[in-house]
């Protein structure tokens, strides 16, 4: 396979981007520069057209404090979140290293979506921190919009913009948020579409596409921002069984290309095969985590065993 991740077929800045996605060695050895260095590399193309937006993104992220542990993309520290009286996250700690694929599993209502939304700063957390490439992005001083531009989020229900054609769905954010020229953004979008076999859908409206195609477009739309972390929230749950595979293939390809991903999923087979680590969430806390072979095949905790038993009897494993 081709080198996926951010290494798009788009010509010129591809090298820089691949380096960023692959987590350049200097990013790991010289942690201080990791965040801003990677950000700058990821933002190469737009830095040329609109230095203001991309540059300030890196700068804003770069102003925060301390150096990160080497290669840590994301660290969730004691995150709590309640909706009214309903405590959904009760102190979650989780670290994701670059190029790792972490699969979040857990029963419905266990807080997987909420955790991902908190990481993407779509929900304000009540306590704890989210540290993204060494920067506490939950601190009030951080412009959360600049942070979101470096994380890609894909939702269960695709959420493509129904009034925009596929191509425009993908280029909207690169053009409006990163200041890329329409031509550059379209070039990259077409390259991504072609890579995932959707080039002929570029001019269609989303409702003309199958669910699987829509979800692949949604993934491409997130990729077009050159995220340093992808958050996938049960991206196959709304799909007919025969369409699940094509979406999982895309995610596998991203994983093979070194993309760092935090994935909430009910697809145990997929988690077993793709995840670096599986994290079992129940009732707002992480009950167990480890390599898939350990968590899925030899769970230590009684609650994990019960959950997996239920999943097994539901035939989802």
């Amino acid at each position, binding site marked *: 396979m081709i080198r996926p991740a951010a290494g798009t077929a788009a010509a010129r800045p591809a090298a820089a981007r691949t380096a960023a996605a692959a987590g350049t060695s200097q990013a790991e050895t010289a942690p201080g520069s990791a965040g801003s260095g990677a950000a700058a590399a990821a933002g190469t193309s737009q830095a040329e057209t609109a230095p203001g937006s991309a540059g300030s993104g890196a700068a804003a992220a770069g102003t925060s404090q301390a150096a990160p542990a080497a290669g840590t993309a994301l660290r969730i520290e004691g995150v709590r979140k309640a909706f009214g009286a309903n405590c959904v996250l009760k102190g979650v700690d989780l670290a994701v290293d670059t190029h790792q694929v972490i699969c979040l599993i857990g029963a419905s209502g266990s807080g997987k979506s909420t955790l991902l*939304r908190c990481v*993407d700063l*779509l929900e304000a957390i009540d306590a704890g921190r989210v540290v993204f490439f060494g920067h506490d992005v939950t601190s009030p001083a951080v412009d959360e*919009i*600049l942070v*979101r*531009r*470096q*994380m*890609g*989020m894909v*939702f269960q*229900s695709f*959420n*493509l*913009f*129904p*009034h925009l054609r596929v191509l425009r769905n993908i280029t*909207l*954010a690169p053009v*409006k*948020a990163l200041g890329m020229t329409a031509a550059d953004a379209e070039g990259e979008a077409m390259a991504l579409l072609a890579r995932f076999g959707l080039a002929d859908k570029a001019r269609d409206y989303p*409702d003309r596409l199958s669910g699987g195609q829509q979800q692949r477009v949604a993934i491409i*739309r*997130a990729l077009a*921002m050159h995220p340093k972390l992808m958050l996938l929230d049960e991206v196959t749950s709304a799909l007919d069984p025969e369409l699940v595979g094509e979406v999982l293939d895309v995610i596998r390809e991203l994983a093979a290309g070194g993309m760092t991903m935090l994935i909430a999923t009910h697809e145990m087979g997929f988690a077993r095969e793709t995840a670096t680590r599986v994290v079992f969430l129940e009732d707002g806390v992480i009950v167990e985590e480890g390599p898939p072979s350990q968590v899925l095949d030899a769970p230590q905790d009684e609650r994990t065993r019960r959950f997996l038993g239920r999943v097994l009897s539901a035939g989802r494993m």
Partner: protein
Amino acid sequence: MTGTPPLGPGDPPVADGGVGLPEVGGAVDELGAGAFSRSRRGRLLRSQRGAVVTSTASTLVVLGAIVVAFLLAPGSRAVRATYFNAHDMWRAFIGDPHEGFYSVGRGLVVNIEMFTIGEVLILVLALLVALVRQSKSPVLFPLRMIAVAYVDFFRGVPLILVILAIGFGLPALYLPVVSSQSAFVYGVLALVLAYSAYVSEVYRAGLNSVPLSQIASARSLGLRPRTAMRHVVLPQAVRTIIPPLLNDFISLQKDTALVAVLGAVIEANRAAEIYSSTVFNYSGYTVAALLFLLLTIPLARFTDHLIARDRTRRLAGAT
């Protein structure tokens, strides 16, 4: 092949049908054999055609009865002479300054001017009011309160009072600029203030109809709230509000006639008023009414068309 009758299987059905399951056999027959045959469908079609003929006929009878009642009414001749006098209608339409009255047709152009200018201003003002009301920023709290009060006030007060208050009230203040405008300007101002209150609610309904998941996805892409509003939320909202918006504009078209109360604006209704008081014949009003219908009916049909198109699209999207 032809030898089947003597064999066993030939007989039992007859016996069954006759003895065993008569009522089941009957039911199957009714559904199975006859149900979808062409003759039945033809009958349905024919009865449908019959229904159309019946309804058309009854409509014509009712309309005819109204016309007959109108023609036979004791005062019919007088009413026809005052409201439907062809000669007066034509005179009112073209106007005659020497006789002291204006053209209702020309007046209508003023109405058209009023609502085209008004519509543009309403679209802008109403959007601003709706956006302020939708805003969440604490900084905008005072503005939000003003917007709420504005909408409550202008939706509650009859339009005619708004026109009178502005058309006669503002000049009476003797303020610079504000008090020295033409009645046309006051008329348009009153219409804009009143209608923006309604239309801002239409906008708000449209904005709220956009699913939160769309906003979440725009935010997750790192779009600023203003960009998300402009490129994601508004375009989707506008699509759903166009029919109700056009309905409001149909009302606006006819409500421009109310500006006639200011006297100084010679629009269609005012021209008709002057004609009737000069000639003592109300046919001018009939002309004005007909002209307004000529304007509003096409817009009404266009609105219907958009609603129907939207409906088919939504049905197609639902599958």
